[in-house]
């Protein structure tokens, strides 16, 4: 036993991915829905534990690598864990853990009996794919795991109750496949000019032989491809409907994980693969990303303001919030990345909480129409208050996590000398206040439209527990952000100076 534990420690990077990956088919074999659910939550717990284990390892040793198949790095596939990896792993596995507890209380979509365990299999495959994208240090491996998670995601979205879920899933499939193929092409062009696929090796070769038009083309394809997956403003078309029509538990899972991992891939490739010198000094990438972000965060709230469906409104808000993260990434500085990571984490927990609260209300009332929400706050106090708190955090009021990340973002833009960017950031906050307050006004002050549902459905522990944990985290990190800021800052530092 004693010998097994240090052995396990060495294999933690791969366990993070293969545990869900191999439990998924197992879930399928068992064929029982109850068992599958139990296994899903258990797996989520194990994954979170592995992440914490990895975190404690990275504190002793900044970079952990793992050669798959025993083949040394550029020839085989390599896993690489550093502070940034751990930060993202922690974010997505935390959200996944809570989302899978929340999922216990939901109907699993519009499924026949035979397909029910398959839903949980797809769920596990989705999160396994996302974890795989985070840990790997191989460009092509990113593509493979991206596809695993994407296919599972399309499936999960299509399980929504309304038939439009199918069309939304199809449109996401087409958009996602185009995006992934762009990424594949980008990897191909990089391979063409370097002869390697390992991210660290690629970055070394690019630095040695310098860039050319092919590499520039690869960068452009990569940005577009990953932009689709992140739902960066002009490439966001798939997201609102996908989030709206997906089953509630799936929306909860996706909003906190899928786009976040895509953003991580963006950060990782820009800095570790193409290199900051190429992207930000040679190419005007900072301008491109910042300008798209400005458009996103100023225009999208107005679309959200005219939205008639609660879930889709918050989906639009996700598009707007992604813009802040993209702006942080676009600055390309240490503070910018720190702000992006902070906002990524904060938005993950806040939006997950909001979608959970929305899910609770939809489950009780059967509608997500905004005009049906009148007086809901008095009927579903807990869920409404969480939604309010989440909304305040989206606005970025002091005392919420949203303020912390926006403050760091503003500090970052001032630090870069682009202090005028503070104005669109603040204006974006104000614009989000408009759509949040529209909901608050209806829920708290308008008369009830719907008949009260017959039995006052009480909150089950699988509903209030994950919500309380998320709200507690959001509150705590809003008041005392030193822990999470410290992590984000050392992750950003590790990314920019891998040596020291």
């Amino acid at each position: 036993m004693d010998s097994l534990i240090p052995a396990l420690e060495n294999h933690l990077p791969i366990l993070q991915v293969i545990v869900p990956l191999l439990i998924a088919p197992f879930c399928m074999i068992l064929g029982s829905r109850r068992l599958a659910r139990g296994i899903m939550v258990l797996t989520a717990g194990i994954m979170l534990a592995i992440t914490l284990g990895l975190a404690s390892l990275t504190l002793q040793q900044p970079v952990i690598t793992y050669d798959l198949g025993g083949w040394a790095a550029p020839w085989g596939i390599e896993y690489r864990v550093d502070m940034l990896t751990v930060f993202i792993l922690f974010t997505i596995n935390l959200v996944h853990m809570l989302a899978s507890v929340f999922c216990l209380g939901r109907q699993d979509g519009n499924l026949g009996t035979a397909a029910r365990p398959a839903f949980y299999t797809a769920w596990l495959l989705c999160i396994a794919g996302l974890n795989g994208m985070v840990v790997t240090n191989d460009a092509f491996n990113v593509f493979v795991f991206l596809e695993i998670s994407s296919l599972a995601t399309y499936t999960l979205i299509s399980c929504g109750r309304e038939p439009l879920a199918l069309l939304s899933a199809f449109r996401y499939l087409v958009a996602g496949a185009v995006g992934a193929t762009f990424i594949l092409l980008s990897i191909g062009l990089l391979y063409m000019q370097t002869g390697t696929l390992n991210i660290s090796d690629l970055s070394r070769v690019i630095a040695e032989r310098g860039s050319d038009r092919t590499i520039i083309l690869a960068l452009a394809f990569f940005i577009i491809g990953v932009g689709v997956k992140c739902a960066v403003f002009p490439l966001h078309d798939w997201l609102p409907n996908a989030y709206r029509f997906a089953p509630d538990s799936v929306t909860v899972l996706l909003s906190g994980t899928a786009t976040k991992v895509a953003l991580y891939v963006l950060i990782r490739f820009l800095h570790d693969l193409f290199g900051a010198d190429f992207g930000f000094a040679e190419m005007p990438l900072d301008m491109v990303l910042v300008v798209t972000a400005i458009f996103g965060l100023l225009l999208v709230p107005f679309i959200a303001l005219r939205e008639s469906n609660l879930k889709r409104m918050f989906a639009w808000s996700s598009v707007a919030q992604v813009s802040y993260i993209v702006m942080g990434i676009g600055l390309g500085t240490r503070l910018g990345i720190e702000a992006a990571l902070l906002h990524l984490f904060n938005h993950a927990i806040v939006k997950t909480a909001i979608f959970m609260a929305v899910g609770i209300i939809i489950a009780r009332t059967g509608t997500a129409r905004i005009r049906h929400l009148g007086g809901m706050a008095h009927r579903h106090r807990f869920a409404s208050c969480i939604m309010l708190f989440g909304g305040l955090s989206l606005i970025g009021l002091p005392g919420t996590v949203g303020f912390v990340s926006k403050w760091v973002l503003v500090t970052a833009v001032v630090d870069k000398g682009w202090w005028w960017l503070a104005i669109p950031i603040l204006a974006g906050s104000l614009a989000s206040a408009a759509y949040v307050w529209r909901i608050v006004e209806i829920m708290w002050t308008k008369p009830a439209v719907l008949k009260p549902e017959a039995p006052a459905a009480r909150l089950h522990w699988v509903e209030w527990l994950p919500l309380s944990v998320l709200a507690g985290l959001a509150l705590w990190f809003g008041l005392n952000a030193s822990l999470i800021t410290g992590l984000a800052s050392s992750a950003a530092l590790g990314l920019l100076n891998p040596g020291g």
Partner: protein
Amino acid sequence: MSFPGLLNYWVALILLVCGLIIVMDSRNLVKKLVGLGIFQSAVFLVFITLGKKSDGSAPILDASVSVYSNPLPHVLILTAIVVGVATTAVGLALVARIRRAYGTIDEDEIDDRPEVEPEIVP
């Protein structure tokens, strides 16, 4: 400069654009998937072309051969083809379900339908 030069890449590029045009322009869901296939195949062509060495042969080791083409792009594209067919299969399964739900596979016809609201008792 040997003759085909960059021709393969240029053709791949045109195929890529053709695929994109089909995906963007068509309202028929099946045609979109066909377009997606062409789009992906253009990328496959880029990979396979870059692995080719003139006068090389397939990378199966044999005493009588001295020049082999690059095996790595082949491996990658094997995987990519499988991914492509998996995506197509899921897409087609979705199309089949969409047809059952709406009786059509034309996006315009589906979009024209009013959204069904849940029953509300005021």
